[in-house]
């Protein structure tokens, strides 16, 4: 195994480059600007037919400069981050040249950053447990062993005839930000993931059913055994045999935690300040309103230990803090704002600027959790006399502007509090605003595999389209 470069040195070098880019942009005529630098490396491995199918490795070093010149915004990126003073100056001049072609807007602002030194930011980031030395090694031996183990286990199940994807991913990355207002900070993290699919024959006509399962963590030690992931993929695929439609009607519909996450991803999108400012949000008039039944809380916590979106400062250098989005009376307390969307709405940034090394900031959530529920999928099914359990959705989410939603769905019927036959080829339809209010049951079985952490939810009644 190769020795890693000492990570602290990498962080200092990235911070220095970000500062040099800011200085160059100032020299080129941008009084207000910020710069980002990203360094990352990843490894993924997949298995098929009991051998390693492919291994992909990557190494990336990218940078970007955002400038505001006379209220005009210019942005230039380079995937091959500058190395020389000349290259640094060229990127800065490109950004300033582009700004001159944009329109003037009072909403283009570079904020005063958090009162945090670069040393403090690094130390605070280390406290969030986002880095794992073992994961950072990107060991192909470990990755291939896990992938092969998953495939062996999943194909050991009676009825599983193959796999679509069996993959293991490892990544390490660091991000540095410097602003013309004096903020300098860097953050780093690792992620590891296992995913496994199972292909099952469904009847004699050549029809197949494919299901998959996955796990993700910041540290290798936090991942489940590969057999657990493989067993779950096989179980889910086998359960889908004989799936058919149900007749159309209006009925209680349960979303398992993964489907609930998909639905709430749409809610988060509608809370994004840029969508609200453009009036392309079905929650644009929702601030201060009751949008959900009482009893649960939706909160955003960028300081969650080991969280997939944890960070000490946001993409514009704003300090991170825990914020309630929807309180336990169901009231919407805040939109998610970065500097520009905040300025457009006449509000301060809420510290929700998400940003990659080569992207402009945009408002988004960090680690968002729904808490306050009780029970789990099994107990909620048991409480449901007749309805539909949705375990897969096809198609896009709600229309951003209207909230109208109509998606293909698959899952299981529920009869007398028990799971019945598998279902496919049906649609569920409604309006996201009405659907939020129709949530009548929330579990405590929060799915912690990603930054958006939802439990099982049940809608009291949704329109299900199937056979007539």
């Amino acid at each position: 195994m190769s020795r890693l470069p000492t990570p602290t040195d990498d962080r200092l070098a990235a911070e220095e480059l970000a500062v040099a880019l800011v200085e160059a942009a100032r020299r080129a005529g941008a009084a207000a600007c910020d710069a980002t630098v990203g360094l990352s490396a990843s490894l993924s491995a997949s298995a098929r037919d009991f051998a390693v199918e492919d291994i992909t490795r990557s190494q990336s070093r990218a940078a970007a400069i955002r400038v505001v010149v006379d209220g005009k915004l210019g942005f230039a990126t380079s995937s091959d981050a500058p190395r020389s003073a000349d290259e640094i100056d060229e990127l800065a001049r490109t950004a300033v040249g582009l700004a001159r072609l944009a329109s003037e807007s009072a909403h283009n602002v570079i904020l005063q950053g958090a009162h945090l030194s670069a040393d403090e930011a690094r130390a605070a980031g280390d406290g969030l447990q986002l880095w794992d030395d073992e994961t950072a090694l990107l060991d192909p031996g470990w990755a291939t062993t896990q992938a092969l183990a998953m495939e062996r286990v999943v194909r050991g199940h009676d009825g599983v005839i193959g796999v679509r994807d069996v993959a293991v991913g490892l990544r390490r990355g660091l991000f540095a930000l410097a602003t013309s207002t004096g903020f300098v900070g860097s953050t780093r993290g690792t992620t590891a993931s296992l995913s496994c699919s199972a292909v099952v024959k469904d009847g004699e006509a050549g029809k197949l059913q494919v299901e998959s399962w996955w796990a993700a963590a910041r540290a290798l030690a936090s991942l489940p055994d590969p057999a657990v992931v493989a067993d779950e993929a096989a179980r889910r695929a086998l359960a889908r045999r004989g799936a058919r439609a149900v007749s159309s009607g209006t009925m209680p519909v349960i979303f398992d935690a993964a489907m609930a996450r998909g639905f709430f991803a749409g809610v988060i999108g509608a809370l994004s300040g840029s969508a609200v400012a453009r009036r392309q949000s079905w929650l644009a008039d929702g601030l201060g309103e009751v949008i959900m039944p009482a009893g649960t809380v939706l909160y955003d916590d960028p300081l969650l230990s080991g969280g997939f979106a944890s960070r000490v400062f946001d993409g514009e250098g704003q300090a991170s803090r825990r914020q309630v989005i929807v309180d336990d009376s169901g009231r919407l307390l805040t939109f998610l704002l970065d500097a520009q969307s905040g300025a457009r709405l006449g509000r301060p940034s809420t510290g929700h600027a998400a940003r990659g090394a080569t992207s402009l900031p945009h408002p988004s959530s960090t680690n968002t959790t729904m808490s306050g529920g009780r029970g789990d999928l099994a107990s909620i099914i048991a409480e449901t006399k007749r309805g539909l359990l949705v375990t897969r959705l096809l198609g896009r989410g709600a229309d951003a502007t209207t909230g109208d939603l109509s998606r293909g769905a698959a899952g299981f019927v529920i009869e007398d509090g028990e799971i019945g036959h598998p279902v496919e080829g049906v649609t569920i339809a409604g309006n996201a605003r009405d659907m939020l209010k129709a949530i009548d049951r929330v579990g405590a079985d929060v799915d912690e595999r990603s930054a958006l952490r939802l439990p099982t939810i049940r809608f009291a009644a949704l329109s299900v389209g199937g056979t007539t």
Partner: protein
Amino acid sequence: MLLDPGLLSRLIGRALQFGGDFAEVYVQRRKSLGFSLDDGIVRDASSGRDYGVGVRVLRGAHMTYAWSDDTSDEALLACADAASRVDGGQGSVTVVARPLSQRHRGTHADPSRPPADVPLDRRATLVRRLDDAARAALAREGASAVQVACSYADVDEDILIANSEGLVVTDRRALVRVSVEVVIDDHGHRRSGTGGGGSRIGLDHFDAPANSPEACAEEAVRMACAQRGARPAPRGEGIVVLGPSSSGVLLHEAVGHGLEADFIRKKTSLFAGRLGDKVASELCTVIDDGTLPGMRGSLNIDDEGHATSRTVLIDRGVLTGYISDRLNASLLGVERTGNGRRQSFRHPPLPRMTNTFMGKGTDDPEDIVKSVKQGLYCRAFGGGQVDIANGSFVFEVKEGYLIEDGKLTAPVRGATLVGNGPETLQRVTRVGHDAELDKGVYTCGKEGQSVPVGVGLPTVRIDGITIGGTG
């Protein structure tokens, strides 16, 4: 040359140091530019430079891939070393790399006026023209605008592909696109419309009146205004008429993906092992053609350096071909069709569609609508998704109308089409003579890789498809 020939040979040699059947180096230097404008303001002007190298080694069905956007000699050699460690694969022969020699290529996808040759301010003008035209059209229609969002994007890139079989080929590729979305208020309801277009020929694309920013803006405003008074869509099984051109996205998703050779080889497509079988109504002929001059999905060569081609996938209802790349064609023992594509040097190639469309039929499009007593006419689609294993798909109807007694009547909202690709193709009962490709706006996603594609369809009548609506 993007990379010194001596270094290319060294990289291929290093990639094969521990054996393998094949090694390839893919070099890409890309310049991109984008302007986005909403509420009449050019929010940002962005430019990107992307330069990097991907190295691939194959041994049987095994692949290793390594890429680097650090393009120093040391980093590239380290990248080739990383790719050289091919796991497993017993009994495979280690090839000796052949000397590199430059290959010729087609020119059907060459740009006539590449973006990088046009001054920045000339390109910025296009996004302002979109906005001006959209606002003028909205005023003329008496529509109250909630939002007008416009964008312009271009890419100008140089590609070099070299492999252990001695191939070296270079390509210059351009891609331009404008898009506009308008949202209007209709008595408290929001209606949106989109327009746009682009191609590979570069800035000359917008000179044709039908492709001008003004024409794109008119289309967006037409679509939004046509939906005023839209009522909830009916639900249940019914007759659907798909309008020409952009409805091709349905064919792309519900049928095209299932014909990609990787899904066939892995037997996760229901079309696997069915060459020669009747899989669609005999009215249906489906073609993938990467050689159409200047189209968004066209390429001179694919991302493995192989010439693109015209492939008949379904001929009058009979399955006749697959969409293939090097690896899957050789493992399946089928012909290579020049469809090995990748998003960038960061990604290994996959079998992907180029321009995929249904050949024209003989019916008059108006007669097709007249033939339907009660049904749904779909003119534009939003998002969609398909499950390749069982062919089931879901599509959001962005612009749809009721058909009543052979006439288009009320616009509907919130409709989705739910069906099964092959079953739906079997139920095609009429095909119009108005086949055409879309305006050049689609991007196809697969395994995290996005590539530009063209889609196309004539007017088509389908007898029996599930409509998911709220009405």
